[in-house]
């Protein structure tokens, strides 16, 4: 890293890139789920959920997270505010 990057605080260290790339690769290696399959699963999940509650598809985050050597599917699905309560 040169003095210019140091001054501007730009994060372009190759070790950081290696770590980020490995994180993603390991998740897919461990779960055997490709990014494509993940996308399909995500869409199906959204479809089922939106049948019951109103959600904003663009605010939904479904990700794989690592906890020790275990993988976890984490979904953060904000519900859309509604004024009319169900009877």
């Amino acid at each position: 890293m040169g003095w210019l990057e140091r001054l501007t605080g730009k994060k372009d260290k190759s070790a950081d890139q290696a770590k980020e790339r490995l994180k993603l690769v390991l998740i897919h290696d461990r779960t055997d789920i490709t990014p494509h399959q993940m996308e399909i699963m995500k869409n199906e999940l959204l479809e089922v959920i939106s049948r019951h509650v109103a959600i904003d598809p663009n605010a939904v985050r479904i990700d794989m997270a690592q906890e020790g050597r275990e993988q976890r599917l984490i979904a953060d699905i904000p519900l859309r505010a509604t004024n009319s309560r169900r009877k």
Partner: protein
Amino acid sequence: MTAKVLTITSGKGGVGKTTTTANIAVALANLSHKVVCIDADIGLRNLDVVLGLENRIVYDLVDVVEGRCRLRQAMIRDKRLPELYLIPAAQTRDKNAVSPSDMVRLCDELRSDVDWVLIDSPAGIERGFRNAIAPADVVMVVTNPEVSAVRDADRIIGLIEAEEKGPARLVLNRVNMTLIKRGDMLNAEDVLELLAVELIGIIPEDESVVVSTNRGQPVALDGKSKAGLAFQNIARRLNGEKVPFLNLEEKDGFFNRLSRVLRGGGA
């Protein structure tokens, strides 16, 4: 005596499995343990040259398994140490000449007689790897701070857990502090966070490993180099001692400081 069987594996080739096996064997023998190492890399024999015992081979692992000699006859004694032995791999056969149950039987025969059986696993995840981990009580995974080696280590750690041989212990080999400081190499913390396993040793990249391998005298024979010391520390940890990890920072001598000033102040 009831031996512990320690298998050294890695997934990826060329990360330093054989060097690690040879050095831990030497270091354990230096601590007055009786050690037998087995080269399980059939067809690609190498532990013999790294240990400097290549000229003394008469019988090999396949000879023992196929009953052409007794176990004792295939054990080459290393004369530099009181009780270090090598059972070399066969060079002209393939890995299917030995089965996992052959390895279990062979190690069981050794168990009552020695303190440690070290098995140098071949690279890969096939038969040779299965042979190497079948009799293991402890499995050590060697990796380098580099994307392909870490990825393969993760695969291997998963397989070790699936075989109920876990938890694997990690040896991080060829750590280059200059590159780490520059932000161009994964550090031990990064690798541990990614792999989520227990660390048992960090070995610095060290020219003396190349030199000692050239001579057939493992660095751990004397503890003068940093790598040699790091291997000795692994042996002590295996022995149940609590040994802090080495400080791998280069000595801040005059020339280091001078060259930093000349390079323009980069740490």
